[in-house]
Structure formats: C-alpha cells, structure tokens
C-alpha cells in the first residue's frame, strides 16, 4: 500500500488561443493550480519534470524561476505527442525509486496558428544541381512525391490500413467518430472548440487528407496541464480531504515501437499501444470491462478507430462494430473521449498527456459537472507520439 502512487493535485488550463500568455506563463498557471489543487507548495516537491516540444528548451528551469527555485532535480522531457505522459511517468519513476515522495509534472505547448504539422520538407533552392543527400540519398524534396510526411495524411493511412485489414470503414464512419467527439465537447468549458457539428457539416468541411476533413483533425491550440504526484506513504500523512480527492495511479506504462515489417514505412501505432494496454491491465489488475471511461489519443478521427482495438475495448478487428453499437458515446457502455477529444478539446502537444489524465481524474473525483460519468471508479488515459512512444495510465478512485 505504501508503494502506491497517487495523483494529489491536477489541473489543465483552458485550451485555445492565449495570445497574452507565453509558454512559461501557461506552465506556471498549470503548475500553481495543480499545487493548489493538491494543497501543497513547491517546498514539498522533490522532483520536477517539464514537457515541451517547440518552446525552445529548458522549460523546467524557466518555470522554477516563475513559481519557486528550490534546487530540486529538473528533467526537461521531449517525447513527441507522448511528452506529457512521459513527464508524468518520469516523476512516477523517481517516487517509485524512493528518491522523493512528491513530484510535479508539467506539460505545455503554444500551437495556435501552427498550421500543418509534419510537413517540414523544404526544397533545395540554393543550388539547383541534383546531389544525393540524407539517409535515402534524395536528390530533391520527397514529401508529396514518395508518399506524405504530414500528420493528417499519415493518420489517414493508419485508419485506411485498418479498413483494408478488417473491412467496414468508410468516409462516413470516420466522420461519425468526429461527430461524437464534437458532440461531447459541448459539455467541456475548457475545450478549445465546443460547437456541436452535424455529420453533414463534418463531411462537407475542407478536406485535408482523405478521409480526414478539417474538423476530423486535432486542433492546434495553446494549453498547459500539470499534476502533483505523491507516494502512498506520504499521502497517509496528509488530511482526510486530500486523501479523499487523491486518485490512485494503478498503472503507468510507456512503450516504444518493437520492430514490425511495415512500421519502417508507415508508423505502426497499433503494436506498441496494444503492448502498453496489455501491460497496464496487468499492472492494475483490471480489464477493459472494468473501465468506466477512456480518454484516448484521437489526433485524427481515423486514429480513434484503431485505438478502440489497440486498447482492447473490443475484440480484435471489431472496432467498426464497437463504434456503430454506440458504446463509445457518453451514454454508451464504454464512454470514449467525453472531454471532446483532441478534435475539439484541442491538442497542445505536450499538455495532452497530462490533460487527458486530468479529465479522467475529474470524473473519478465526481467533479466533472455537466459531463460527469456517474459513478466512475476506473478510467484509462492513452497518448501516442509518432516515432513512436505510447503512454497508458489507469486511474482509480480513492477508497477513502
């Protein structure tokens, strides 16, 4: 019991446009709110992990200068879209290792107006003579000539590959997944976009990479999230109210790609997610049927479908039937992305892996207001960063 790991305080900022706040401001806002939520101060914190991808580096130390410099070890973490979950897991590992009994994990990103991610290919223009360069000996820009590097196109293929393997997918099916998440978002005041969208609106919107139209893509936005993590032994020394609101981390897992044939040319987001969920269910001693809600990484509508399967919410190959049964709607048997998901809540990359844990904790604490999943006791949060890294956390309501 004293080896248990708990979330003592956790928060996310409003996701959206924050033109007046920089990366460090957002991190400070999230961190101070998480400390207040846990009823502790920086004096209690023994380790800090700070996740950020495009802020320029060294976020953790900049954050300390805003909220309190105490000389504790700082880990600046970068792990693609799994950065937030990796920061959290870094703190969890430090506590498990006995180096300290309380730590702070922060993830923050400024992404408003960032445009198309992954489309970094720049043509050689300084000297127009073909010379091979790079790992593939390319003589010119290959993006768009040998497939696509951009994220909407990459994840579109991942959904289509599932359809090729198991059948049953269509443009309309993927759009319906997005319809669900946009519908859920209407109940989340912290989401970047909270408008319900009809199937016709979603399918008729601007096509980005078939079958993903614009509302089927995660929303670039600004946001931060932070969590205070504590050992079970230390938690016992705190107030009953703190113990009651604390959420147990029953499983914390991070995986990377094992070798697979096709992941060399198209990222395989399936194998490492299935591995992570299997390990997490074993660690937590629960199964998919025990989950009351799931926040999974719907960076695109096409991605959500494959993760129903990868997280074992359905039989292998059964994701289409699982969705069409209505199960993942908030009134279904297995509510998925009741926050609105990345498609409407937004995806400030490094904040995402903590914000989805906040969403689950919010329900387990019974504090989710209009969107509360009644009686929620166990939830799962999943993120994936391409390359790849997958984080899965299983959280349980306090018995206290």
């Amino acid at each position, binding site marked *: 019991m004293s080896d248990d790991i708990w979330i003592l305080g956790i928060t996310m900022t409003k996701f959206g446009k924050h033109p007046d706040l920089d990366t460090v401001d957002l991190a400070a806002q999230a961190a101070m709110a998480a400390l207040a939520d846990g009823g502790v101060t920086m004096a209690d914190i023994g380790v800090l992990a700070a996740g950020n991808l495009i802020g320029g580096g060294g976020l953790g130390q900049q954050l300390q200068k805003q909220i309190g410099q105490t000389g504790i070890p700082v880990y600046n973490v970068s792990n693609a879209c799994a950065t937030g979950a990796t920061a959290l897991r870094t703190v969890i590992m430090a506590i498990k290792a006995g180096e300290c009994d309380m730590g702070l994990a922060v993830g923050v990103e400024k992404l408003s107006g960032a445009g198309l991610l992954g489309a970094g290919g720049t043509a050689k223009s300084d000297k127009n003579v*073909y010379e091979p360069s790079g790992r593939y*000996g390319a003589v010119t820009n290959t993006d768009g000539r*040998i497939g*696509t590097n951009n994220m909407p196109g990459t994840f579109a293929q991942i959904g289509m590959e599932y359809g*090729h393997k198991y059948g049953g997918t269509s*443009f309309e099916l993927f759009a319906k997944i997005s319809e669900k998440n946009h519908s859920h978002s209407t109940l989340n005041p912290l989401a970047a976009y909270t408008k319900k969208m009809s199937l016709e609106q979603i399918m008729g919107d601007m096509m980005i990479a078939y*079958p993903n139209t614009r509302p089927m893509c995660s929303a670039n936005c600004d946001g931060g999230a932070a969590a205070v993590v504590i050992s079970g032994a230390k938690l016992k020394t705190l107030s009953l109210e703190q113990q009651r609101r604390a959420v147990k981390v029953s499983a914390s897992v991070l995986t990377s790609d094992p070798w697979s*044939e096709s992941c*060399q040319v198209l990222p395989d987001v399936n194998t490492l997610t299935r591995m992570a969920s299997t390990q997490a269910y074993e660690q937590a001693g629960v199964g998919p049927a025990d989950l009351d809600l799931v926040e999974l990484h719907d960076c695109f509508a096409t991605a959500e479908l494959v993760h129903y399967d990868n997280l074992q919410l359905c039989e292998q190959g059964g994701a289409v039937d699982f969705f069409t049964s209505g199960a993942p709607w908030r009134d279904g048997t297995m509510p998925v992305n009741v926050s609105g998901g990345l498609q409407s809540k937004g995806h400030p990359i490094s904040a995402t892996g903590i914000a989805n844990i906040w969403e689950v904790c919010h329900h387990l604490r019974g504090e989710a207001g209009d969107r509360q999943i009644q009686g929620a006791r166990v939830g799962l949060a999943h993120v994936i960063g391409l390359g790849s890294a997958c984080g899965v956390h299983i959280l349980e309501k306090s018995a206290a």
Partner: protein
Amino acid sequence: MSNFDGAAANLLTMGPKRCTYKGGPMATAVPIVDYLVLGDNPHLIARECTGCGARFFDRRNACASCFATTFSNAPISTTGELKAFTIVAFAAPGVPVPFVAGVVDCDGTSVRGNVIGVDPDPDHVALGMKVKLTTYVVGTDDDGTEAIGFGFAPLEA
C-alpha cells in the same frame, strides 16, 4: 540538417547510379532516392538483413529486428497491392495537391509511395487495388540532369 546529412551521404554503401555518363551530350538521369534502381527494368532495392530477412530502405548499423550487422541488397517486387492510402488535399508549400499517398504491399515488403496515373479521388482509388511501379521525370537541374521519381500505377487486368 545539411552537415549531418552530408556526412551521412558519404557513408552510403549503395549510392545512386547515374544512368549515362555525366557531362556528355545525352541527358543524364539520377534516381530521386538511392533505393530506386534505373535502367531497363526500374525497381526498388532494399538492404536485407542476412540474419532474419528484415528489409530497410535506408542503411542500418544493426538490424532493428534481430541486431545482426550484415546486409545484402534485395530487389523488391515491382507489383503489389495497395494496403493503405490517403488523398492529400492540403500540404506544405511547394507540394502540388491533390495527390494520392499510400503503402503498397509488394510481395510482403511494405513500400511507401504515391499512386499515380489515376484521378486523385475516392472513386478511382481503392484499398486492395493491384498496382505496378512506374517511373517518371520529376525535374531537371541546371546541368540538364533529370531526376527520376517513382510511383505506383493501376495494373491493367
């Protein structure tokens, strides 16, 4: 990018081969990437692990699957089945859209490439489509050298 990639290019054991002699009166051609082999029967070539047969289109220090350190060159089948695709309508500046990007299963080896020779719309591209490798001129540099690209076109029945 430039320093690292430049150094890396020098280490290539399987460099791109120019089709005809450079500087001559005839147009020379270079493949867009070093794993495209030009000539009478254009095809792709992979580095195949001698330990487990895993294939890679770039060089590896050791096999990602079994950690063996020796590789041989393996030609890839020029026909295959389209197992995933997307139609990119919105891309980085300079990338002409729309285009069909996909993954082709070439006799068990997954290959990334565009589907060409079809209208880029969902009525003309289908999962499971049989395709074959074709080449085309991507562009010409200031020396008159042509860059040859590849794509996958529908295989006529």
